[in-house]
């Protein structure tokens, strides 16, 4: 039995094709202004990569993410909170805390030993601690998103960025640039500022090991290191691309639905 999961996020669309035991294929596309279209492009490509001829060959599809209500070919939709938790836990069953950092929100979930969400907190009110924030900072610093990830660990003395608001943080960064502070130190400072915010969210649900990151921003190594430092635990990496954890979770739920 082969099923699909489709996670239509604010920035990218992710699709996963899953059989009983493994991810057969996955595909990530930048989100278009039409969530329906984003979903279809991602799912059709993942289906093709899995060697299937059509989306119709999938026994069940679950949609998730901001665009979950617009995935017309999905049989059901489940919130991204449940999906990220399920996906991350399946990829590493020791995981009890998931920090998901997407394009326009971040959320923290605490899980039980079966991957069920016990509690969650979510920030989607402001851009602080989201992909949007990193994009804005990369633009000001002219370093690209890769630079935010790679240069951070070269910053020996992270600059202090106190503002929780991405608009004000950008002003602070501009000030630092004009004071001649080293770019690597500013980037380290940015990652530390976001890590602080995530840290307080983790403490709200209660920190339990192991902890892992999902979502597009989980690829920011500088952020992961900063978070480890603040929380005093190591961040576990997942055996698959952490950006597709939500789509994997959706596919897992799809396969449960078929079995039920």
């Amino acid at each position: 039995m082969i099923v699909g999961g489709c996670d239509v996020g604010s920035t990218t669309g992710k699709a996963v094709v899953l059989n009983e035991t493994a991810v057969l294929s996955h595909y990530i596309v930048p989100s278009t202004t039409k969530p329906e279209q984003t979903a279809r492009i991602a799912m059709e490509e993942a289906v093709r990569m899995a060697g299937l001829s059509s989306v119709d060959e999938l026994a069940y599809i679950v949609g998730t993410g901001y665009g979950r209500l617009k995935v017309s070919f999905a049989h059901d939709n489940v919130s991204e909170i449940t999906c990220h938790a399920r996906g991350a836990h399946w990829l590493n069953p020791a995981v009890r805390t998931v920090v998901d950092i997407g394009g326009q929100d971040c959320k923290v979930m605490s899980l039980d030993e079966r991957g069920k969400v016990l509690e969650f907190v979510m920030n989607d009110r402001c851009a602080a601690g989201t992909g949007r924030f990193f994009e804005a900072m990369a633009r000001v610093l002219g370093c690209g998103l890769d630079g935010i990830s790679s240069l951070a660990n070269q910053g020996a003395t992270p600059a202090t960025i106190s503002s929780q608001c991405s608009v004000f943080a950008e002003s602070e960064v501009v000030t630092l640039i004009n004071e001649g502070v080293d770019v690597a130190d500013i980037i380290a400072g940015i990652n530390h500022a976001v890590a602080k915010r995530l840290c307080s969210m983790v403490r709200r649900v209660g920190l339990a090991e192991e902890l892992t990151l999902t979502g597009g921003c989980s690829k920011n190594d500088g952020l992961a290191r900063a978070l480890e430092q603040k929380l005093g635990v190591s961040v576990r990496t997942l055996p698959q691309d952490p950006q597709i954890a939500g789509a994997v979770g959706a596919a897992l739920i799809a396969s449960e639905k078929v079995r039920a």
Partner: protein
Amino acid sequence: MDTEGRAKAFEEFAGAAGAIMNPAVAAWKAQGGRVVGYFCSHVPTEVLTAAGLLPFRMRGTGSTGTELADAFFSNINCSFVRNTFNLALQGDYDFLDGLVCVSSCDHVRRVYDNWKRNLGTPFLRIISLPKKVEDAQVGWYRDEVAILREAVEKHFEVTISDERLREAIRLHNRTRRLQRELYELRKKEAPPLTGAETLAVMVAGTAMPRQHYNEALEALLERLRGANGQRDYRARLMIVGGELDDPRYLEVIEEQGGLVVTDAVCFGSKAMWNLVDEEASDPSEALARYYIQGQPSCPRMHGDQPRRAAFLMDMVRDFRVDGVVGERMMFCDLWCVEHYMNDLDLKEAGVPFIRLDREYNASAKGQLRTRIQAFLETMGK
């Protein structure tokens, strides 16, 4: 009841809750009736009714922006007062013959200050509300009730006898009893009305001539007693919070399958769960006792959290609530720690709880939808 009959039964209430001016108030005004606005659940509105005035609870319904009001507030004032004052500045509250504010919170106090300087409403008062709920404070509040009573008599040139005040108390209690009966119907396995519908009925009760409202509510109850109820919900929810007057907020929750079966919010159970003593020899004292000690407690009151927690737990048990939604408006200081305590209490009792911050206008639907859907999923519903 079919869909059409259902819409008809709720039509007048939904209309009154969905706007500031409604046909019943317009008719009241056209007949020379006078209307006095009031903020908060602690204003003894029976005094206004006894004076032949129509008490109208202040809201920001229909506001689409706060650009006029923002200049008068700081960036930590809540969006409820901003939207409400914005409506006042653009003339939507010009029909008021008076306004009674209360020192319930600093945001409302600031409305009073701004109102005084910027709007020409002829009768404007602020009541001083004590912070504790002991007998000494009942005495204090009795004085405040008496001062309001005198001021209303003087300004509107009426006499409020004890008997007239008792009559008003009976009329308001009648509303409370009917509303309580409406809530009782929601205890059923298949409640005949949704949380959004209930909230509309409750809000309408603060915006319509009372006699007329009571009759309309009796007619609604008559229809609902034998009506079929909702069975296709995923979970029974309770909503706890403050100034929630927008049925659309509950609609978003209920669209996810979480049927709101009861509440502890200002426009809901808090306004009617208990009764004012109708037989008391001093009706002013009876009102003071009700508004300080009788009605369900507000987080504004010091040292009264155990009573609020007990009320919450009783509600959860009596309405067979599966999960509790705690809403708080951004920048509301009164509610900022209350939900933390609710979280601990409910966790101990094994009742799922979710805290939601919101703005006055229910515009962030997608964010609310995701949280409620995830909340229901975590409950295994």
